[in-house]
Each structure stands twice: as structure tokens, then as C-alpha cells.
């Protein structure tokens, strides 16, 4: 465990020093917020307070995208051979990936904090209790952990840092096919079917319901999707790391 702590320290230091990633992690979500609230907000009038509607979507979109950035430092380690040193040392391979995943969670916590702060300035008025906030953050944590482990796995097999970032593009677009920005009821039927059944929608719905004091109807699928993905991704990534290491 102490090895994992050391690796967490390393990954956080590395991500603090990688200015591009650090800036992207915070600035992108804030820009997205502004874009949706000020540019599209007026046009999308099917909901009363668009800020209240869109904040959970932005948070889920940005944390999902942010989590996938885990793939890049992992791919970088694999390529640079520094990973060979760790693998030839008496520490578990698990700790190397854990370092990157925990750093990813820290980056996303920061990004979420920034988004909520800016949202409040833009007129976001959450009515949630402390307990509901805690639940929402808990669900987001599981979601971010799951995507971070998935991204870590991608980082292990990616041939380059560039291809490791492809998962990020996917995660940047997937939330548009959900209830993140517009209610699914406004979509054509075939798209609606996709949107309603993709894993991100229940996560967004649950976070939104929790933050705006609505009844939570999709908590079970949200947790099942995120938790299930976490278990699968964690197993896959650590297995890959061990397998690739014994190439």
C-alpha cells in the first residue's frame, strides 16, 4: 500500500507539472458551461431554468472526458520505459496504475468544484440537501473511477500517447446522445431509444435529480452501470498490465 501512496504522489506531481492537461481539466468544463448556458440556453427553452438543468450534464460530461485523460500518462509511462524500472522492482504493478487513477480523481474533483462555482455565479440554484450532494458526489466518484480504470487499460495497450487520447474524443461526444443538454423527449424516436439506454443517461438523471431535489428514479441503473464498469475496467486494466509486462 505504501508503494501505491508513493505512486499517487508521483502522478499528482506529474499532472501538476503538465500544464496543458491541468488547464484543460479546469478550463474546458468552465467554457462548456458558459457555452451551454449563454449560447444555447436561450434557444433551449423547453425547461424553465436551463442552468439548473444543464449543470449535472456538464459535470458528468467533463468528468467523463477528464477521466479518460488517465490514458495519456499511462501510455507515456509504457512508452518511455520508466515502467520497466517499476516492473523490475518488488512492488505490485497495481500501484503504478493506481497512482494515475487517483491523480485523475483529484483532477476531476478540482474540475467539478470549478464548474459548480462558476455555475453558482451564473445563477445555478441547487436545492439539494447535504446528504443529496454527498450521494451525487459519491455516484460521480464511482463513475470517474470506472472511466479512469478503463482509460488506464487503454493507456497500457495504446501504441502512442496520441492514440491513448482517442477514448477521450469518444467520451466527449457520447453525452450529447443523452439527456445531458436537452430532454430526450425532444429527440427523434430512434435517437431517443439510444439515449435512454446508454449508460451515461441514468448517471446524469440521478445526479440531476439529487441536486435539484427531485425524486430519484434511475439510481439503480446508474449505480449498476458505473459499479459494473468499475469492476470490469479495474480487472481488465490490472490484468493487461500484468500480461503486457510479461510480454
Amino acid at each position, binding site marked *: 500500500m*505504501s*508503494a501505491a501512496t*508513493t*505512486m499517487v*504522489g*508521483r502522478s499528482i*506531481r*506529474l499532472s501538476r*507539472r*503538465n500544464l496543458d492537461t491541468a488547464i484543460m481539466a479546469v478550463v474546458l468544463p468552465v467554457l462548456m458551461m458558459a457555452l451551454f448556458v449563454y449560447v444555447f440556453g436561450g434557444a433551449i427553452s423547453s425547461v424553465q431554468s436551463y442552468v439548473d438543468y444543464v449543470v449535472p450534464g456538464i459535470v458528468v460530461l467533463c468528468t467523463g472526458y477528464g477521466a479518460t485523460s488517465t490514458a495519456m500518462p499511462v501510455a507515456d509511462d509504457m512508452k*518511455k*520505459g*520508466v*515502467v*520497466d*524500472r*517499476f*516492473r*523490475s*522492482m*518488488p*512492488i505490485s504493478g497495481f500501484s503504478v496504475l493506481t497512482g494515475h487513477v487517483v491523480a485523475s480523481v483529484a483532477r476531476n474533483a478540482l474540475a467539478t468544484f470549478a464548474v459548480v462555482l462558476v455555475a453558482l455565479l451564473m445563477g445555478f440554484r441547487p436545492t439539494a440537501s447535504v446528504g443529496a450532494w454527498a450521494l451525487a458526489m459519491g455516484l460521480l466518484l464511482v463513475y470517474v473511477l470506472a472511466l479512469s480504470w478503463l482509460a488506464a487499460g487503454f493507456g497500457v495497450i495504446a501504441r502512442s500517447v496520441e492514440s491513448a487520447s482517442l477514448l477521450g474524443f469518444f467520451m466527449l461526444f457520447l453525452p450529447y446522445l443523452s439527456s445531458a443538454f436537452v430532454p430526450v423527449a425532444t429527440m427523434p424516436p430512434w435517437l431517443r431509444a439510444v439515449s435512454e439506454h446508454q449508460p451515461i443517461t441514468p448517471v446524469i438523471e440521478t445526479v440531476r435529480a439529487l441536486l435539484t431535489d427531485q425524486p430519484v428514479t434511475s439510481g439503480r441503473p446508474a449505480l449498476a452501470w458505473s459499479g459494473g464498469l468499475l469492476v470490469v475496467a479495474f480487472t481488465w486494466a490490472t490484468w493487461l498490465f500484468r500480461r503486457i*509486462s*510479461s*510480454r
Partner: protein
Amino acid sequence: MIVETEGLTKRYGTRTVLNGLDLEVAEGSVLALLGPNGAGKTTTIRVLSTLTRPDGGSARVCGFDVVRQAADVRGVISLTGQYAAVDEEQTGRENLVMIARLHRRTRPAARARASELLERFGLVDAADRRVRTYSGGMRRRLDLAMSLVARPRLLFLDEPTTGLDPVSRTTTWDAIGDLVRDGVTIFLTTQYLEEADRLADRIVVLHNGGVVADGTADALKNSVGGTRLDLTFASREEALRARSAVGGLADGPTLGLPSDGSAAHLHRVLDDLLAARIHVLRVATHRPTLDDVFTTLTAVAA
């Protein structure tokens, strides 16, 4: 034997990189693995340091099987790979402290160890700069220092001095010498025959995934031929006259003569020349270098 391999085989696709390698390394010795590019030196080190799984045969390090007891092997070895394995975005000191912490040292102990190694490898001035700004040689020295944070029983060095200037090379050799005195076994690969000659108790020449020669530097040199006497005369004509008296191969004013290196043989040659009234200007003895050994062995086996 701290390293024992039997019939070690490794394939990449259809290419056989290690072809039934048998190796033994005694504890406390220095083994140099020599071989042309692509001979399988790095592959051998990667298998022995548990980074790569062999396809056949077996390898034991400190009595532990590299496949089934990989974790135990990792506890007793340290590796400096062919390419520097350092974090570019951390400083030299941070890199060293990190490795010390991974070896379960307390924070103060880790810092102390880092300072000690920075001092030893002449990196004090650069200690708090990011490695990204280091020169190739500095990076290499840091890499080596990182392998020495914990005192391993067996240290693998894959081309430890490639790209180093003569001063850094000597520093590295001194560091390796200190380790040997401490009883650390060294398994190194090198392209510099001088390095093998100077550091190694035993040299193994690898070619096409198999051992083509194994022995001390002297034994290897003797295997490709003994000493040669080079006699230099005033002119080419004199050298040719000398050739008819004592034999050998003339090259300009110099005559090369095979010898067993003994004083008696030299005496005999000089006596014969004196009797023929041929005046010798200079005498030099020439031992084959490891370069000769290397060229001969890898050319024959090719």
C-alpha cells in the same frame, strides 16, 4: 550460482532471439555479455529481470525461478536498462526519493540516500532541475543512481556507459568497482571491449541467440591467436632479408612474427637476426585485443 539458465529460448513471431541459452554466473563476479547489435543481449537481461517471459527453458536468479517466483527475483535484483528509465518531469532528487520510498525507506532516510547518490554521481548542481533539462550523460548517471538506491544482490546493467564522456565513464566504472567490492554481482552488456576487459571476470560472447565464447578476457584472446612480435627495420629491403632468415609476414619495414610471448623465443629470433647481420631498430609485442576476438568470433559464427 546466482544466475543459472538452461536452454533459455525466446521467440518474437517467427524470429528466434534466444536459442537455447545456457549461462551460469557466480555470486560476487562480474559478467560481461558481448555481442553485435541484435544478438539478444537486452532480451537476455529482460528475461532475467522478469520483464519478459521466456518461451522455453528455465532461468533461476538467486535460486528463484524468473517466471514462477518473479516477485522474489525482483526483491534481489536491480536493473539499469538500455534506455534511461527516469521521470522527465520530476527533478533528479525527486526521482531518487521516489525510488527510495518505493523501497520502503522513511522520508528522511529516502532524502538522505538521494543526497548521497547525487553527490556520488556528480549531480548535485542539477539535483533540483527537472530531468527534461539534463544531458544524455547526466540522465544515464541518474538512471544508474536510481538502480543503486537499494543495495541489490545482483545488478543488471544494459550498456551502462554508452554515450558517456570519458570522465563520466570512469565515474561509472569506479561506482561499479565499489559495488563489486561490496559483494554485488554485476551482469552487464557492453559494446566497449575495453570496458569488458577492465571490469569483467568473465566474458560471454553472444551471437544469434547462442553463446559462441565464454571465458576470461585472456582466455578469449588466446583462443584467437597468441602474441605477435613486430620487428621494425631500417628499410623494407632489410625487412624482406629478415623474413628469409626468421620467417613471418613483412609489411613495409616491419616484420610480424607469431610468438608464444616468451623471452626465450624473442632471444632466439634476435640471435638468428644477429647471425644474419640484420640490424633490428625496434621490437614490439602485440597481444590480440578483445576487438580481434569479437571480430573473429562473430564473423566465424555468422
